[in-house]
């Protein structure tokens, strides 16, 4: 099976869908001729023409607002926000419009759009190229939020997102574009070409939204993670020797609660981790759900490791990023608790 980077896998997903369904249009800042600042859409304009893949003005509200109008018309726009940090001007369109059009019109109009955006830090992007705003999407009604962690999933989840009848936020952990970064910033990252999850099937396949994956089977403690933090969790488990069960949530909303509950009931312990800021983060939701559903199976308080409640710093990136050392310490605490 061919191996691809996450960038190539996402491009392949777009290519497959543009080839199968002429309603799929792709646009965003630098997305057309140049192929995007991360090169995800490279070659799509040449292959499908300027009507299907084109450059947009630097206006995120306009990108999402026009996509909503296109979806109302009957197209399937899949737009790119250059960095998740740039989505705020589009937030009104996403939360009060995209998420509610089906509901408020009682199905008269629908909004099948996909909004892709690179998320997370680890590339020295400073406070405006490193954010993880997933909780701002899961907190509002009517949206679905997906965070893939590897090339094979990225393509399959993207195809599901494009085929979904409702709006989907597709967060691409940019530190994973080229390999499974585990937080050890001082070591080279294994390329996806050398990783089994870099094996991306050709053609059309989909991975359903709302289904988690177990990345490491274990019996001692459940770690709930998504995106880059999946690999941080795997590294922490190896380095501490804790037999952790690492669950890659893949879709935050709808959430695969069954997979979470089944694992926590088995291990009796749980650690929740994410790169986004701590307070009111998606981790708070996970901790609550675990408490509500698994309280009598818990042998220790549920732990949480997340980004500090500050803007993402530039020079101090590795003091900020919740890497394997912090996650490892938290794992041991949950084991002792």
């Amino acid at each position, binding site marked *: 099976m061919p191996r691809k980077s996450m960038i190539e896998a996402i491009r392949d997903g777009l290519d497959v869908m543009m080839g199968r369904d002429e309603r799929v*249009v792709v646009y965003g800042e630098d997305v057309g001729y140049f192929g995007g600042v991360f090169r995800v859409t490279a070659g799509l304009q040449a292959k499908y023409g300027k*009507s*299907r893949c084109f450059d*947009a*003005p630097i*206006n995120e*509200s*306009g990108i999402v*607002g*026009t*996509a*909503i*109008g*296109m979806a*109302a*018309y*009957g*197209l399937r*726009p899949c737009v790119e926000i250059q960095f998740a940090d740039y989505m705020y*001007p589009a937030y*009104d*369109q996403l939360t*009060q*419009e995209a998420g509610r*059009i*089906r*509901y*408020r*019109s*009682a*199905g*008269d*109009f*629908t909004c099948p759009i996909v909004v892709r955006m690179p998320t997370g830090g680890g590339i020295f992007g400073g406070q405006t190229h490193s954010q993880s705003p997933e909780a701002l999407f899961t907190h509002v*009604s*009517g949206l*679905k939020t997906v965070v893939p962690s590897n090339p094979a999933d990225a393509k399959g989840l993207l195809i599901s997102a494009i085929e979904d*009848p*409702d709006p989907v936020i597709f967060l691409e952990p940019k530190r994973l574009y080229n390999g499974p970064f585990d937080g050890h910033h001082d070591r080279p990252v294994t390329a996806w070409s050398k990783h089994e999850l870099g094996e991306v099937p050709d053609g059309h396949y989909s991975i359903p939204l*709302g289904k988690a994956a177990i990345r490491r089977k274990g019996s001692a403690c459940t770690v709930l993670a998504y995106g880059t933090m999946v690999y941080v969790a795997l590294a922490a488990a190896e380095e501490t020797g804790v037999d952790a069960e690492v669950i890659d949530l893949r879709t935050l*909303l*709808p*959430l695969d*609660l069954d997979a979470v509950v089944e694992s926590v009931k088995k291990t009796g312990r749980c650690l929740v981790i994410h790169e986004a800021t701590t307070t009111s983060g998606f981790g708070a939701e996970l901790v609550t759900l675990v408490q509500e559903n698994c309280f009598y199976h818990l042998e220790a308080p549920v732990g949480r490791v997340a980004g500090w409640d500050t803007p993402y710093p530039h020079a101090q990136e590795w003091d900020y990023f919740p890497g394997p050392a912090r996650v490892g310490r938290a794992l041991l605490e949950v084991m002792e608790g």
Partner: protein
Amino acid sequence: MAKTSTDKSAPLRFHVPEPEVRPGGQPDFSKVVIPQAGSVERPPVDAEPESIRKLAFSIIRVLNRKGEAVGPWAGALSDEELVEGLRHMMLLRAFDARMQMAQRQGKTSFYMQHLGEEAVSTAFRRALEPGDMNFPTYRQAGLLIANGYPMVSMMNQIYSNEKDPLKGRQLPVMYSSKEHGFFSISGNLATQYVQAVGWAMASAISGDTRIAAAWIGDGSTAESDFHSALVFASTYKAPVILNVVNNQWAISTFQGIARGGSGTFAARGLGFGIPALRVDGNDYLAVYAVAKWAAERARSNLGPTLVEYVTYRAGAHSTSDDPSAYRPKTESDAWPLGDPILRLKAHLIIRGVWSDDRHTQAEAQIMDEVISAQKEAERHGTLHAGGKPSARDIFEGLYEEMPPHLRRQRQQAGV
């Protein structure tokens, strides 16, 4: 010695625009320059935007003071069409009157009427073809009335009753009808403007022939989405009509707060290279003629047109405000462009196809029609009495397929 305004050491002054008059004062529209009917040119639809810049600063008018249709924008509609147009405006006014009263009687929570602005949406609708799509604000119900959308369905929505097509989820008057080319009203401001441009882009991408119409009020042109819409419409030459209804008031805020120093709202289009026209919004014939011109441009791949309808909101913004708190009570009577219904009525009488008697008869007949629709709607309930949407409708229809967390919450709610 007093410091002069050009003295660089003088303290800076903060400028806040003020309307000409406030409550207690004499209404004064002397600064509103009203060109004579028929005096503004009608350029070919493919005129260079640069060559017709002055249309953004004038007012296209067809009906003169005597009620005659004059000038290059006249003559587009037949007697029958004009009588029907009058009827649409009268229907909208009667509908508003009954629903305004129903709100006062506690049958619904809220209402927004069109008083004085009836020509804008009813005449515009006539310029569109089946399949075209409006992205309206809450003051364009004339698009539905003039397109034959059932009044009973509108009332069911206003009452949020058991037959409400929107299942009780939306504020009154936030209608939706794809079939009638009427996009779901948000209740947010300006978001729909850029969505209309996206719809139009999609139509062009698809090689379709349908066009879109965006709607916004003078106050909301200050929103960034207005600017976003103009950028996208300009860049992609989207087949869209960008309508700005300047009714002078954004709740209590006079139009100068949104307009700033730009002269007119239409002038906003010029920086984007978008042809921009101002039209007498109380002149049914002028609204139709300009809308038709803009629609022809859009359908001929000539791109967007910005149209500012100069009108006056004779009533309150909604049932939640009292205009006498922010403008003179008699300001509406002083509005120099008159009442759209009376103006079209006068024109039809001059044409010899209408009379005072017929008008009185029509008024009575239309009111009967509205009252009988109201009775039918009220059989299905009003906001606080009779049939209402199910509590299950809270959870249904947010997603095509209900996700597990909503199924759990619906169970918790016991519905």
